[in-house]
Each structure stands twice: as structure tokens, then as C-alpha cells.
């Protein structure tokens, strides 16, 4: 394929990416952001899959078998833990305006400049090899595609121009905005697009190899089974290198969190913490999808190129090429190109921010001469220093590629980078979960870990390319065998990655914890430790919980902001501040501690936390605060929040209580009305017999000569009315006792049969007088009920006398029955009277039902009988009701729980 065509296509592709990014940023400016979407977020995380995955996994699978899977298992295992670890890191970074991993560590340990610089240096040293393998992948894929052997001896070869091209592209891409906390929406969109492209193309390549070249998975496997090393490749190696699997999984678990590019896309570019929820399953799914065809392609390559000397890393491209599929090959080349460029762009942006904020700025801002001279050009210096760093990193990566990476596989170099960033794990994980970690612990652990990483992984690779004598590997430096880089302190039997990880992590963790326990934190550190570990407690109150004491003047703070943000943005920021904390604005007076913190955070977004700290303290007269004060201030703000919550809860309780009081009051009012009504009904009911007695007596007194017959009639009525009065009073008192709960029942086991017959006996005379047919039908051997004999008789008498009163006046018929049903004893009293209308059947159990409905004939009785019966039955845990068909009669029933033990006998 024509060399210049491929180069042209590559640059067209970059132009497409740029167009996409530009379009995404325009959309975002118009308020229709593409990036605030969990799918874009998850896809941008797939920047994890670089040329290493795209080309290297196949190479690894072809030479070492299943081992390639380890670095995808790690992130998959890590994903569920993101909710615990990554979410916390995201929250901390948002609150503290942290933009890089170096900033993160330095910020946690008191915004310490040295620590930030060291982390930056480790990152640069660790990531440059990784970037170099992307260059290598692009260069070798270009070579195999065009057949043009890269002239290794010529200095500005193709890969140099690729490196410079990518550098310029990244500069245009990444340094358009000054403040690093501002998200690069265009970049994220482009990265997400590249993730889709590389996945789709890789799967297409896999399908082509599996179904186009071979005849499906089975065919490849069958043919590959003939290969001599087949068994070794498709089984997990069992000759004791489980430790290699273990360390690779651990490495990749840490890499997915701490690689600068992962930190960039997962933390800095995160729009919404909730997007993590989707990414937690989408990202592992992506890893799974991109790995499906790795083994078929690897085995297919081994079969097709059994004799040829084709680098296994390039099988993906070599197979379609050898089949003459030039368009497909070009597409696959672009997929690999996109995997490489996405990694390079994001990594280089992250590294350049780190370098300018942690290496260059601290020097600039702490040397007064420079600071004063260039104070009005700081923004320009900052942007240009970043641009310089981008180019520097790419040139270094090119040099590494040229002199080292050429001799190693993609995966071997990549793992070295993984091991470098793994050195941050103790300081970060410890920093967000353990308040006691100190900056000396972090320094000791990280430095020693990095030195061991360098000695056990980088030094051997330098030996490999001839930069150092081979005796170091074989006999140890200066002949000290204990210091052999692959068998440090005599540790043997581990592969070199496991060996390096073991020693570096062992000493790193040990020193971090040990030194932390032996040293003390400064107040600044203590403050940050509190905020980091308890971020979910403090994040909402961060700005108001100022742990800062000193004097600052508003003009100083303002000029600081103007220097770094420019005049326009500084003014916007001040306005935003005043909107957030309204209050009198004194342009020349002392600055509020809140303003100082606010300004420091703004600066941190531009120049990193430690430089921002230096800048702010240069214009502020600070006083040292004791650790106790720090804790007190933080606790106070914490308490304020809990007091607020408490208040809110209290006021809600109050509102609820008021509501309850109101309803209770209404109920009381209603009860009061009922009581009034009851009272007036009672007095009315009392007045009628009283009136009669009074009037009759007076007439008797005034007319001594009355006829005998009239006299007797009068006296009889007086006696009857007096009886009625007595009965009424008794019943009213009864009712009141039941209603107030004062009524006591004298419970005893009794036979309902006895109650019925006693009641019937009491009314026998009345029944006979009225010539009523009364039938009593009670089941034999009924179980006992627990009841108050006199009260139950009262109920029965009431029901039967009602039946007598209301039954058919000509042919009265009453049936009283009793039987056992569903664990209850049931009693019915049925009459053949005119019945009760359905809507009345409940009301008749109310007090003075008769009195309220005087349509009913009221022969006798107080109107309280049924109300009392109802209360008696209910106090016995029973139930009373009436069924009636108007015109045919009524049937009153009640049930009482049977005494079960007695029922059994």
C-alpha cells in the first residue's frame, strides 16, 4: 500500500477527531453537552485499551497463552470497588479542585511541594515507556502495511514525525483552556469515539479471521491442536507461576485507578458521580467484548505464519494483509492508530498539567525575582510551559522507543509502566481511608518503592539494550550477589514482574505505615487528612469550614487571581463569590477567610494545589493553627450541619404534633357535641316522666274528691313513670361506665343455655299476655363461654323484649336459637315484625336511636337498651349485629368466643 496514502489517511483521521472535538465543544457551549451521559463516560474509560490491547494481547496470547487475560481480570474485579474508592476520589477532587494524581497526593499530605514533584517525576518516568510503545505500534503497523522498512539509522524517521504530529495535535486539543479543572469535553467525546472505533474494528478483524480465513472457532482450535505448543497456550500455566497471575491482576487493578490517563478520564473529566453506576458494568463488558477474538487471532496467526518471522504483536494486521484485504487492513490500521492516539493524547495532557503544576510552577512562584518580573505574564508562561511539556514528553517517548522499546514486546514495556504507578497505591488508598498517614510516610514509601521499581525493572532493560554491563544481572553490581536485580536479597523463583512488585510494594507499604506511625502531622496535613477521609461528611460544608487563620487584604487576593486567571475571569470569579456569600463588599479591606480559601481553590485548578498554596501564603500573613483547633473547626461545622438537621427534624415533628393536636381537638369537639347532645337527650327523656308525675300529683292533691277510678289510673301512671325514671337513670349510668372503661365484668365459665332460659323465664308473663309464639332452640352440649352472667341476661332480656315489642301484633312469633360455629357461640333472636330498613341497621345500636327518630313508635324503653347490649357484648370480645328484611322481620345475633378447653371436653 502506498506509504503516503496511509500517512494521509492517518492525518485525515486526526482531522476528523479534531472536528468531532470541536463540534462537541460547540454543543456543550450551547448547553447540549454530549459528555454528561454515562455511556460516553464509560466509553472514555476504555482509553485503558491501548495499542497494547489492540496488538499486544494477540502477541502475548500467541507466545505465552492465556496470561494476557490477567490485565483485564484486574479492572473487572476493581469495577465493583469503584463505588467505594473511585467515587471518593472523584468527590475529593471536585471539592478540592484537584486535577492530577500528583496534585492529589501532595494535597492529601498538606499540599507538599516535594511530594508532588516526586510523584510527577515517577509518573513521567513510568509513563514515557508506555507512550513509546504506542509510537512503536504505530510505526510497526505502518511498516507492515506499507512494506516500507523504517530506516532505523536515519534520525528524523517516520515515528519521529508521528510523535511531533501527535504533540502538535495534543497542544491544539488540550491547552486551549487554562484551568485544568475545566473539563475537556471535546477530548472526551473524541476518546469515546475512538473507543467505539477500535472495538468495532477489532471485532470485525476477529470475525474475518475466524470466519473468513478459517471456518469458525472450532476449525481454528482443531487446526491449532496440531501445533506443538498448543496445550501450553490454551491452559493456564501450572508450573508454579500463579504468583505471576496474582501480581498481574493486582497491577492492573491499581493501574485502572492510578494511571494518569485513567485518572484524567475517570476523575477529572467526570461530570456526574452517578455515571459511575453505569460505567461499573459497561466498562467490564467492553473489556470482555474486545477480548473475545484475541485467542482465535493469535492461534490463527501461529498457524498461518508458522514459518515466517512475523512479529506476533502484529498478527491482527498481518493476517488480512496476507489475504489481500487492503481496505480491511487499512481499517484495522486505523483501529490500532485510534487505540494508540487516544492513549497518547490523554496521557500527555495529564502529564503536561502535572509537570507544569508540580515541577515548573513551584519554582516560578517561589523565586521572588521571577515572580515579580513576570507576574503579569503568568498565564502565558503557564500555557507555554504546558505546551513545552507536551512536546518534551513525546520527544522523550520517541527516544525511549528508539533506544529501548525497540527490543521489547508491547506488553513487557507496558507492565513496567503499570508497576510504576502502582507505587502510588499506598499513599492514595491509605490517604483516603487512614487519617494517620503522614507526608513523611508517603515520601518514604513512594521514594523507596520507586527506587526498587527502577532497580528491578528499568535497570535490567537498560542492561538488555547494552547501556549497562551484563554483569549486573548475572553477578550483581560490584559482584554483590544479594543485589542482583532479578534476585534481590536472594529472592528466587519468581518471574521478574512478580519479584519487582513484591519487593517494591512490600517496602512501600511497610515504610508508609511505619514512618507514618513514627512521625507527626502538621495542622495543614491534619486538616487535609480529615477532609479526605471524611469527604462525604465535609464535602457540602467545605468552603464554610475554613481552617485558616491570618490576615489578608482583598486587593492582594484580587491581583493574585488576575495574574493567573486574567482580568475578565478573575472578575467573574469574584462576582460568583459575592453571589455565593452575600455581604458588604469592602474593596480595600481585609479578606474573609472564606475568600482566601475560595481563591486558593481557584488557583489550584490552574496551577495545582501546592503552587496555589505557595502563592496564597505569599500574600497572606498566616498564623499557625494547632491540630486541636483544626479538629474543633471541622467538628463545629459538622455539628452545625447536624444541628440544622436536628432543627429540621424537630420542626417537622412539631408540625406533625400540631396536626395531631388539631385532629385530636376536632375529635374532642365532636365528642363534646355528642356529649351535649346526649345530655340534652337524657334531660329530655327524664323530663317526660317527671312532668307526668308532677302534673298527676298536683291534680290529685288539688282534687281530693276525684272519682276512685281516676285516682287509681293516676297513681298507676305515677308508679310506672317513676319506674321508667329509675330505669333510665340506671341505664345512663351503665352506659357511662362502659364508655369510660370503668365497667368491670364478673367473668365465669357459663352455659349460654342457662342465660337464655333465665331470660325467657323473666319475660314469660309478657309473652303470654301478648299471645306470642316463643320458640327456644339451643344446641346440646355447647361449650362454655367466659361471661358475666347478669350482663348477658341483660342483653338477652333486652333483645327478647325488643322482639316482643316489635313482632307482628296479631301473630307474634319469636325464635331464640343458640349454636356453636367457627369457634364461637352464636345466639339469634328473630321476630316476625315489620323489620328494619337497611340504612338503619347500624344506627339502631346508637344511643337514643329512638329519641332521634321519633317516627318509630316508642312504646316503652329508654332508647339505650341496644347501645348497652352492644357495649356488653363487645366488652366480652364478641360482636352484635342485626339482619333484617323489611316486612318480614329482624334477626338480632351476637357471637361470644367459646372457651376452647371446655369445648374439647
Amino acid at each position, binding site marked *: 500500500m502506498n506509504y503516503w496514502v496511509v500517512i494521509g489517511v492517518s492525518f485525515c483521521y486526526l482531522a476528523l477527531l479534531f472536528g468531532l472535538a470541536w463540534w462537541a465543544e460547540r454543543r456543550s457551549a450551547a448547553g447540549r453537552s454530549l459528555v454528561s451521559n454515562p455511556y460516553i463516560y464509560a466509553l472514555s474509560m476504555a482509553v485503558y485499551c491501548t495499542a497494547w490491547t489492540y496488538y499486544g494481547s494477540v502477541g502475548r496470547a500467541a507466545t505465552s497463552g492465556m496470561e494476557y487475560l490477567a490485565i483485564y481480570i484486574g479492572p473487572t474485579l476493581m469495577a465493583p470497588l469503584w463505588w467505594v474508592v473511585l467515587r471518593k476520589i472523584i468527590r475529593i477532587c471536585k471539592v478540592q479542585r484537584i486535577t492530577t494524581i500528583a496534585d492529589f497526593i501532595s494535597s492529601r499530605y498538606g499540599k507538599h511541594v516535594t511530594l508532588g514533584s516526586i510523584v510527577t517525576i515517577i509518573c513521567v518516568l513510568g509513563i514515557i515507556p508506555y507512550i513509546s510503545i504506542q509510537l512503536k505500534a504505530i510505526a510497526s503497523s505502518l511498516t507492515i502495511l506499507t512494506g516500507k522498512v523504517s530506516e532505523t539509522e536515519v534520525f528524523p524517521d517516520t515515528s519521529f514525525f508521528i510523535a511531533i504530529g501527535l504533540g502538535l495535535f495534543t497542544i491544539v486539543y488540550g491547552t486551549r483552556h487554562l484551568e485544568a479543572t475545566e473539563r475537556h469535553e471535546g477530548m472526551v467525546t473524541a476518546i469515546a469515539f475512538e473507543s467505539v472505533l477500535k472495538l468495532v474494528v477489532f471485532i470485525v478483524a476477529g470475525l474475518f479471521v475466524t470466519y473468513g480465513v478459517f471456518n469458525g472457532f472450532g476449525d481454528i482450535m482443531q487446526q491449532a491442536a496440531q501445533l506443538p505448543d498448543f496445550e501450553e497456550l490454551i491452559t493456564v500455566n501450572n508450573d508454579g507461576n500463579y504468583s505471576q497471575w496474582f501480581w498481574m491482576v493486582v497491577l492492573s487493578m491499581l493501574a485502572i485507578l492510578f494511571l494518569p490517563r485513567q485518572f484524567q478520564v475517570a476523575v477529572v473529566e467526570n461530570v456526574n458521580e452517578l455515571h459511575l453506576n453505569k460505567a461499573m458494568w459497561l466498562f467490564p463488558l467492553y473489556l470482555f467484548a474486545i477480548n473475545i477474538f484475541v485467542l482465535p487471532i493469535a492461534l490463527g496467526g501461529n498457524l498461518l505464519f508458522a514459518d515466517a518471522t512475523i512479529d506476533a504483536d502484529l498478527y491482527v494486521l498481518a493476517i488480512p494483509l496476507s489475504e489481500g484485504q487492503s481496505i480491511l487492513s487499512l481499517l484495522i490500521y486505523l483501529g490500532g492508530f485510534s487505540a494508540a492516539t487516544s492513549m497518547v493524547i490523554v496521557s500527555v495532557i495529564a502529564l503536561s498539567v502535572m509537570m507544569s503544576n508540580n515541577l515548573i510552577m513551584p519554582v516560578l512562584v517561589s523565586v521572588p525575582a521571577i515572580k515579580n518580573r513576570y507576574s503579569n505574564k503568568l498565564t502565558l508562561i503557564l500555557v507555554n510551559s504546558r505546551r513545552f511539556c507536551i512536546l518534551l514528553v513525546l520527544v522523550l517517548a520517541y527516544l525511549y522507543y528508539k533506544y529501548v522499546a525497540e527490543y521489547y514486546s508491547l506488553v513487557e514495556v507496558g507492565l513496567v509502566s503499570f508497576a510504576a504507578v502502582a507505587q502510588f497505591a499506598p499513599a492514595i488508598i491509605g490517604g483516603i481511608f487512614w487519617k494517620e498517614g503522614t507526608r513523611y510516610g508517603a515520601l518514604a514509601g513512594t521514594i523507596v518503592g520507586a527506587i526498587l521499581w527502577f532497580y528491578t525493572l528499568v535497570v535490567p532493560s537498560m542492561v538488555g539494550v547494552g547501556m549497562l554491563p551484563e554483569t549486573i544481572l548475572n553477578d550483581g553490581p560490584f559482584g554483590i550477589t544479594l543485589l542482583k536485580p532479578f534476585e534481590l536479597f536472594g529472592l528466587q523463583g519468581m518471574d521478574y514482574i512478580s519479584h519487582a512488585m513484591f519487593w517494591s510494594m512490600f517496602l512501600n507499604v511497610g515504610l508508609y505505615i511505619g514512618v507514618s506511625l513514627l512521625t507527626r502531622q502538621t495542622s495543614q496535613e491534619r486538616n487535609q487528612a480529615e477532609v479526605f477521609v471524611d469527604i462525604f461528611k465535609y464535602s457540602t460544608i467545605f468552603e464554610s469550614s475554613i481552617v485558616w487563620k491570618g490576615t489578608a487584604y482583598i486587593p492582594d487576593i484580587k491581583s493574585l487571581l488576575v495574574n493567573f486567571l486574567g482580568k475578565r475571569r478573575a472578575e467573574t470569579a469574584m462576582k460568583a463569590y459575592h453571589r455565593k456569600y452575600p455581604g458588604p463588599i469592602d474593596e480595600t479591606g481585609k479578606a474573609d477567610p472564606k475568600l482566601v480559601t475560595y481563591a486558593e481553590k481557584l488557583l489550584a485548578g490552574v496551577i495545582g494545589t501546592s503552587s496555589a498554596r505557595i502563592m496564597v501564603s505569599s500574600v497572606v500573613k498566616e498564623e499557625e493553627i494547632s491540630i486541636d483547633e483544626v479538629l474543633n473547626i471541622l467538628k463545629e461545622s459538622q455539628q452545625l450541619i447536624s444541628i440544622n438537621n436536628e432543627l429540621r427534624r424537630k420542626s417537622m415533628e412539631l408540625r406533625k404534633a400540631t396536626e395531631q393536636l388539631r385532629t385530636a381537638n376536632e375529635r374532642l369537639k365532636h365528642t363534646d357535641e355528642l356529649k351535649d347532645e346526649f345530655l340534652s337527650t337524657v334531660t329530655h327523656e327524664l323530663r317526660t316522666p317527671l312532668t307526668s308525675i308532677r302534673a298527676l300529683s298536683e291534680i290529685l292533691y288539688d282534687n281530693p274528691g276525684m272519682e276512685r277510678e281516676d285516682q287509681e*289510673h293516676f297513681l298507676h301512671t305515677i308508679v310506672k313513670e317513676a319506674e321508667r325514671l329509675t330505669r333510665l337513670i340506671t341505664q345512663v349510668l351503665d352506659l357511662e361506665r362502659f364508655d369510660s372503661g370503668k365497667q368491670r365484668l364478673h367473668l365465669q365459665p357459663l352455659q349460654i343455655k342457662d342465660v337464655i332460659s333465665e331470660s325467657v323465664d323473666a319475660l314469660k308473663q309478657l309473652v303470654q299476655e301478648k299471645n306470642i309464639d316463643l320458640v327456644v332452640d339451643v344446641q346440646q352440649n355447647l361449650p362454655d363461654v367466659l361471661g358475666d352472667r347478669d350482663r348477658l341476661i341483660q342483653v338477652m332480656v333486652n333483645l327478647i323484649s325488643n322482639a316482643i315489642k316489635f313482632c307482628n301484633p296479631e301473630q307474634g312469633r319469636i325464635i331464640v336459637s343458640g349454636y356453636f360455629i367457627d369457634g364461637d357461640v352464636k345466639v339469634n333472636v328473630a321476630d316476625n315484625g315489620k323489620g328494619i330498613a337497611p340504612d338503619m341497621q347500624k344506627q339502631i345500636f346508637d344511643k337514643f336511636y329512638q329519641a332521634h327518630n321519633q317516627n318509630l313508635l316508642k312504646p316503652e324503653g329508654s332508647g339505650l337498651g341496644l347501645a348497652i347490649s352492644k357495649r356488653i357484648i363487645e366488652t366480652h370480645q364478641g360482636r352484635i349485629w342485626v339482619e333484617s328484611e323489611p316486612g318480614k322481620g329482624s334477626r338480632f345475633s351476637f357471637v361470644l368466643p367459646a372457651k376452647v378447653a371446655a369445648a374439647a371436653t
Partner: protein
Amino acid sequence: MKKQNEKLKVLVVDDAPSILLPLEFMMRKNGYDVFVARNGTEAIESVNKELPQVVILDIMMPDVDGYEVCQYIRSKKEMEGAKVIFLTAKSKDVDIQKGYEVGADLYVTKPFSPRYLLEKIQELTEG
């Protein structure tokens, strides 16, 4: 006391037999022509039929209450000049006021003195 040819017609209305008993006895003994009604409907029938000069009215009765019966009497031309006396257990001020508003000549609360009631009725019919 009264001349026989001027025998006055009295309608006594109450739903309680035990109250009708002394009223009926007292009025008859004192020379009135007594009619009895047990509820509002009966009262109106009796008014139409007998055109009594005196009506003694309970208020709380089934169907038509005493106030309505009184209003009916007051609206009836033939009943002009008839005396209406409420005899009731309702003793609140508002009830009494309402009684006079609907056109009562006298309002007596229960329990009552037959002697006093009789005197009042005589005063009303003679004056």
C-alpha cells in the same frame, strides 16, 4: 266558672300518653271541650276539623313539630284569635324566642304546674 253555652274547644297535642292524661283530665274538669292529638299530623287534622280556640302544643313530636303546627294555625284564617300555648321540655332561650316568633301566646316549660297553666289559659281567654 264558665257558662255552659260558651264551652271553649281545647286541642291538646303531645306524643306522651302519660302527659296527655293529666292535661286532658284538668281541662275537661274545668269545663273545656277537649280534643287530643298524638302527633303533628293529627294536630293539623284536628285543627281543621274542630277549629279550637285554645291549642296546647308540645314541640318535639314525630313528623310535624310544634313550631310548624303553630305556623299552620297562624296562617289559617278561620283560626284567627285562637290562643296557642307551647308546653315543652325545650327550655333554652333560643327555643322560647323561636316559640314566640312563630306566634305563640304563651310558652310553658315542662315539668309544669297544672294549676298555673290553667290560670294562664283563663287569663288569655278572658282578657
